[in-house]
């Protein structure tokens, strides 16, 4: 009996946080999505209405923006995987034992700098006639490619770290055994390394995908006139003062992430987090 009391005391604070602050805010979001706003005064009309969802489903622009946002999140994730796997492999297996902690620190350092500073730094880098253009003769300019590029840069550490952790658990003896049996590097990677780190990749992709899906600042700074889901939410709260409609739009990424998490769960990636 006392054991249960102690357990309850220990868990009540985090449970309260989870239910009240976390699920509670989600519930508020869901409820207010069914309200509307008086078009003239901007006051919230607290009557049940499906108008917001009808607009989102029938207006083509919301479908386009959703597809664009998912496309950006998917591209960012793919770029991060392609860059992170070799980097993580080098850090975990190739680099000398002494240099490994330093490499991890090097990967983490960009996370210490402010998000805004990094985004504005890229705005300067990408500017027409800016450093990138004078160095390579070409720049992505401001737009969708620039958004993908900068987001991939921002979230790369979140992909490297789980893959690195997964590779560290991979015993070197497995790689040696594979080599002894005559497999070349490529075969070893496909048959031994990849199956073991797939859950880690999925774990990393949850970060990169969800962070990209909700982003609205990077795209404002380097995205030119591009709109993503986050911009629509921001514009409806800030400029249009239409909180219910913003809540309805915000349900889109929530829904996408739920589908994504359910899909990822089947790969066992949630145990890797």
């Amino acid at each position: 009996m006392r054991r249960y009391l102690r357990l309850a005391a220990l868990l009540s604070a985090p449970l309260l946080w989870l239910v009240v602050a976390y699920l509670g805010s989600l519930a508020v979001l869901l409820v207010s999505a069914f309200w509307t706003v008086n078009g003239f005064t901007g006051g919230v009309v607290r009557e049940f209405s499906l108008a917001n969802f009808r607009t989102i489903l029938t207006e083509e622009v919301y479908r386009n923006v959703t597809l664009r946002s998912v496309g950006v999140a998917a591209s960012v994730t793919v770029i991060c995987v392609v860059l992170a796997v070799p980097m993580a492999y080098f850090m975990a297996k190739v680099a000398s034992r002494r240099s490994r902690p330093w490499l991890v620190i090097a990967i983490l350092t960009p996370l210490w700098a402010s998000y805004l500073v990094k985004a504005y730094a890229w705005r300067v880098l990408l500017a027409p006639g800016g450093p990138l253009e004078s160095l390579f003769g070409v720049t992505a300019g401001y737009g969708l490619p620039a958004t993908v590029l900068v987001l991939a840069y921002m979230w790369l550490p979140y992909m490297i770290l789980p893959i690195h952790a997964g590779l560290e658990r991979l015993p070197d003896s497995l790689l040696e055994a594979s080599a002894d049996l005559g497999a070349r590097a490529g075969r070893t990677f496909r048959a031994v390394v990849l199956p073991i780190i797939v859950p880690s990749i999925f774990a990393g992709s949850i970060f990169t995908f969800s962070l990209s899906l909700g982003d609205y600042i990077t795209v404002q700074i380097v995205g030119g006139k591009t709109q993503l889901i986050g911009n629509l939410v921001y514009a409806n709260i800030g400029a249009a003062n239409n909180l219910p409609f913003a809540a309805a739009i915000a349900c889109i990424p929530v829904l996408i992430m739920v589908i994504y998490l359910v899909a990822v769960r089947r790969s066992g990636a949630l145990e890797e987090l």
Partner: protein
Amino acid sequence: MRTRWMTAALAAGVLTLAACGGGGDDTSGGSGPGGLELPKIDKLASVGAGEGVVNIVSWAGYVEDGTTDKAVDWVTGFEKETGCQVNNKVAGTSDEMVTLMKTGEYDLVSASGDASLRLIYGGDVAPVNTDLIANYRDVFDGLKNKQWNAVDGQPYGVPHGRGANLLMYRTDTVTPAPTSWSAVFDPASPHKGKITAYDSPIYIADAAVYLMATKPDLGITNPYALDDTQFQAAVDLLKQQNELIGEYWSDYTKEVQAFKAGNSVLGTTWQVIANLSKADGAPVEAILPTEGATGWSDTWMIGAKAAHPNCAYLWMNHIISPEANAGVAEWFGEAPANKLACAVTVAKDHCATFHADDEAYFGKVWYWTTPLARCVDGRTDVTCKDYSAWTQAWTTIKG
């Protein structure tokens, strides 16, 4: 088992909140636009001693204390004289101003015509007792008791000044110099990708002003009163313009930076942005195109729940005093509201340049006004698109 428990908890949370939110406001019809009742809010009877602080929401350049430019300061003197410390929050769009005033944390707002009525009928601002504002009698009569700053003869604020939205271009890349808004709407523009536009639904009116001049058969008589066909034409024009746009702007610092770096070379602007860009060394010029333009006539309004009403009244009297009003008018690039301000401007011809008392000129400038379903141009045989339709269309235009 575990998931069922979670679902139950979630459902309980939703039900509780739904119950809390259920006691909605009554929506009885009234006499105002959109069937709204004018909220009854008392005006101040007398001005007492200042409360020590006043919180302001304003347009960029309206509240300058010398930090932007040492010579530009009409706040420090006011603070010393009244003991009211001025806290200023700059807003980029009228929508942002309405949102900020709804928080009830601000005492004053410099509202344009597309915000003022929304604030009045939303119960966010209080009527103003103009007897308590000595400088009010020197305000141009052409600005007093207008439909955007008064209801039934009761003023809801003091007029601040007026002006037009301009067309700005970089003199080194845009040649010959543009004279018409067609420069930003021409699909074959050589400046594709470097054109900018104001990021707010109210910009739809700019397209309507252009259509008034170029497509007279649409029959637009007021850019804020657009029926279905007229609205569709404006939206189509803006969708076509979207191909030319590099970036939209609502943050004035972003536009200054974009014109300085050359990311934007042509687009709509305010005089103050042109001034700041020039001060920053960007080779820009701003003109009023031949078609006329949208513009603003601003009003200082006091919050209905203002915590510092005495300081707010002192500020309203101060900001339309000849000296302060002249200072703002010259810095922002607009016509002052106080007729005595014309005598104390640094540039002696300022009032002539900005047509301070030229009502014929301002006939060509379409002050920002909130679009309503009941057409603001007086037509009764059609329904016009209201502001929420404008907001939704703006998202569609940006794609």
